[in-house]
């Protein structure tokens, strides 16, 4: 199969620091990736023609002309942060807009397919000073429409989130480390699914038999009340698109259905290897990269427990609330995520705030150890970046509150 992937991407980023929006970066990049597949072997090259192919059909060629609106929102974020907390000494706010048009044509298609992807991402950092001690809070959000002053519900919540995180850190302790039950909050804890099983379900690792889940297809791998999907059609989710980067229409794939491993995440190569249909998970960072199986928006369907019941069920453990980064070792199955904020749970109640600890688990074991699933599914609105094979893409994630019976929590 011969495939052409034509892409034009415009980006613009405005940054407020020290009360001034005095930095802008803007880019315009275009190119064509050419991939030849022969069995499972890929030959890839890309070039940057001064004139894109005739079949390339961008919907629009420029970013929205709303710089003054974006500048106003950045100033409004700073003003709001300073108004809400007198301890604020520094505010840094960034709005980054990306507009990507892609057209994909291959020898299996009669016509090219076209996709238009627009994302606007807001980042807010606040530094607080209290009795000479500094703490930093951070929040981000992914938007699908240009950032406008007239839509404060899209950007105002960042202020409260960033301030709350910084404030939490003043009161937080480093917990005692060890193995313990972990209640994962709804939304941001989607990182658990992403690191514990998501990467290990990517079918390139499985066709090479290097994933710890390589021999588990069709098996019961967790309790029957657990269902996990990867859904590229999820409205207003960071990893949503009309087509994947191989031209496969986006879809919702059941990875785990009622506790049973139902599907891996496939690109065309792995789908052919396994004799199944591609799942629309062939993604790439840009025309400079060949697609590989990636997550889009990965989430767990809600269960029946209330968050309150889940917390009450734990005698001694932690409640994990916000995270910065995570990673996984595909073969061993060991995954980690860095817990930025959370709480101790003592006798069924949230007690002392905790901070800055790494949490380790083993994918199959952690999945099997999810004993309670909440009824409160939340899709995380933060900007989640996922790195694999030297490529970074935006992904979405979500989860209801869950209880993992045992994870290893870093601490003192």
């Amino acid at each position, binding site marked *: 199969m011969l495939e052409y992937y034509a892409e034009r991407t415009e980006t613009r980023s405005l940054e407020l620091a020290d009360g*001034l929006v*005095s930095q802008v*970066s803007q880019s315009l990049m*275009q190119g064509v990736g050419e991939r030849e597949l022969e069995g499972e072997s890929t030959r*890839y090259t890309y070039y940057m023609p001064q004139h894109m192919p005739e079949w390339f059909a961008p919907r629009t060629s420029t970013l929205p002309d709303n710089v003054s609106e974006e500048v106003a929102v950045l100033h409004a974020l700073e003003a709001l942060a300073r108004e809400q907390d007198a301890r604020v000494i520094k505010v840094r706010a960034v709005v980054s807009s990306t507009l990507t048009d892609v057209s994909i044509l291959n020898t299996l298609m009669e016509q090219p397919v076209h996709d238009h992807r627009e994302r606007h991402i807001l980042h807010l950092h606040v530094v607080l000073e209290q009795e000479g001690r500094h703490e930093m809070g951070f929040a981000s959000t992914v938007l699908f429409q240009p950032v406008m002053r007239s839509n404060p519900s899209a950007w105002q919540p960042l202020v409260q989130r960033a301030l709350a995180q910084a404030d939490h850190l003043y009161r937080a302790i480093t917990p005692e480390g060890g193995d313990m039950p972990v209640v994962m909050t709804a939304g941001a804890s989607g990182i658990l699914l992403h690191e514990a099983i998501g990467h290990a379900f990517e079918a390139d690792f499985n066709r090479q038999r290097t994933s710890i889940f390589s021999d588990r297809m069709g098996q019961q791998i967790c309790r029957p009340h657990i269902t996990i999907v990867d859904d590229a059609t999820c409205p207003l989710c960071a990893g949503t698109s009309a087509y994947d980067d191989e031209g496969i229409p986006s879809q919702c794939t059941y990875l785990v259905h009622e506790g049973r491993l139902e599907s891996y995440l496939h690109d065309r190569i792995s789908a052919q290897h396994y004799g199944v249909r591609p799942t629309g998970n062939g993604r790439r960072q840009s025309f400079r990269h060949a697609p590989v199986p990636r997550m889009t928006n990965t989430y767990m369907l809600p269960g029946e427990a209330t968050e309150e019941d889940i917390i009450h069920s734990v005698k001694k453990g932690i409640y994990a609330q916000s995270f910065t980064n995570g990673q996984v*070792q595909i073969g*061993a199955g060991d995954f980690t995520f860095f817990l930025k904020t959370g709480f101790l749970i003592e006798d069924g109640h949230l007690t002392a705030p905790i901070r800055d*600890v790494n949490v380790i688990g083993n994918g199959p074991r952690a999945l099997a150890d999810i004993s309670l699933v909440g009824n409160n599914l939340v899709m995380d609105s933060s900007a989640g970046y996922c790195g694999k094979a030297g490529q970074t893409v935006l992904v979405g994630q979500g989860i209801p509150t869950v209880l993992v019976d045992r994870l290893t929590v*870093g601490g003192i």
Partner: protein
Amino acid sequence: MSMIGHRADARLLWLRNVEETLSIINRKVDKQQRSESQSLALTLYVEGREGFFYTNVFDEASLRRFVERSLAMTRLLAPDESRTLVSPERCYRGGGVPLLNCDDSLEEVPTSQKQSMALATQDEVMDRDSRIISVDSRYVDRIHQVHLLTTGGCEVSECSSRCTLSTLVSVRGEGEARPMDGWGQTRIFLRDLPTEGIGSVALERALRKVGQRPLPAGRYTMVVESPVAPTLLQPLLSAMSGYALQQHSSFLEGRLGQRVGSDLLDLLDDPHQVGTRGATYFDYDGAATHPLRLFDHGRLCTYFIDTPMGHKLGMAPTTQGTHRLIMTPSVLSLQELLCEQGECILVTDFNGGNCNPVTGHFSYGIEGFLVRDGLYVQPVCGMNITGHILDLWQSLVRVAGDHDPYETELIPSLVFEDVSFC
């Protein structure tokens, strides 16, 4: 530059990359990629305003539109007097001896030759052990050229290259576990790139991980293997950035000149070593680079101050960042260090974790081995180390002399005492 005229100060970078990647999995070609890219990075300074613009669309009409839009966009910003071109006296204007760190011939070497090298590393491993699941051997090379031009009169060029051969081996472990590890070598010149030993070392490293498990929590002596030791330096380097200091989000704020680590924390950035990776005479803002002492026997000697942060902090600019880091080594091998320690945990990889840039508190996942009197007793995984990064560097008690001179960070294996593992 002629399109900009006298309407702005400007810095223009022309960048060209030529790259080739070959991946061989279980003796079959999995992927070949060869590409060449060029791009322009334009930084404009208009009436105290700074804008950064980037494109790969070069036809004259598009470039004119690009320049006009960039000028117009920059004018929309707030003036900020700190944002100026590097001053003429800090600019690199050429004249350094050739750095000899670019292998132009990489572009001409046929793919088949590179593929043979990757296959050779793979052949060292295949069929050597019944537990092998998969062997992934890669050859990657890259030539990077940069030409920098400013309205202040700087015009300089550099070229660098690297080529890497590596192998990743996955083996069947206990239960469902499939431990994986790898090894690789990187050189500037293809003629210097060894093919022997890479596959064998990768297999040995993968097999020795079979049976990994956590140890009881406690305080152990920690030996960090050279290839992953830079991970622990990174929080210090990030905290030395002028931007972090200016934003009051650095745990090294106010610590210049103070002792922040043990006597053995002795670190130099030397960008002028001929024939080495990381060598360069200029940063991308055009400023000339200089050898810079970062830590002198534990004392913090400098921050990374660029032109705008120099203005804002009232400090003399130093450099944008590091280029070729060199920690003063000893003459000891890793094995000699391990034998000295009695019982210790040898950390061979970090698994996630982070360090709070404001406070310096860290927590990292690790894997490695319990070692007694130099003998590897038990492969270890599923553990964290937790503490404060400056306390950790204060507890550095030994360094080896086993750093890889072909890397850009020449950090030997390190011994830290009394580290909290759980």
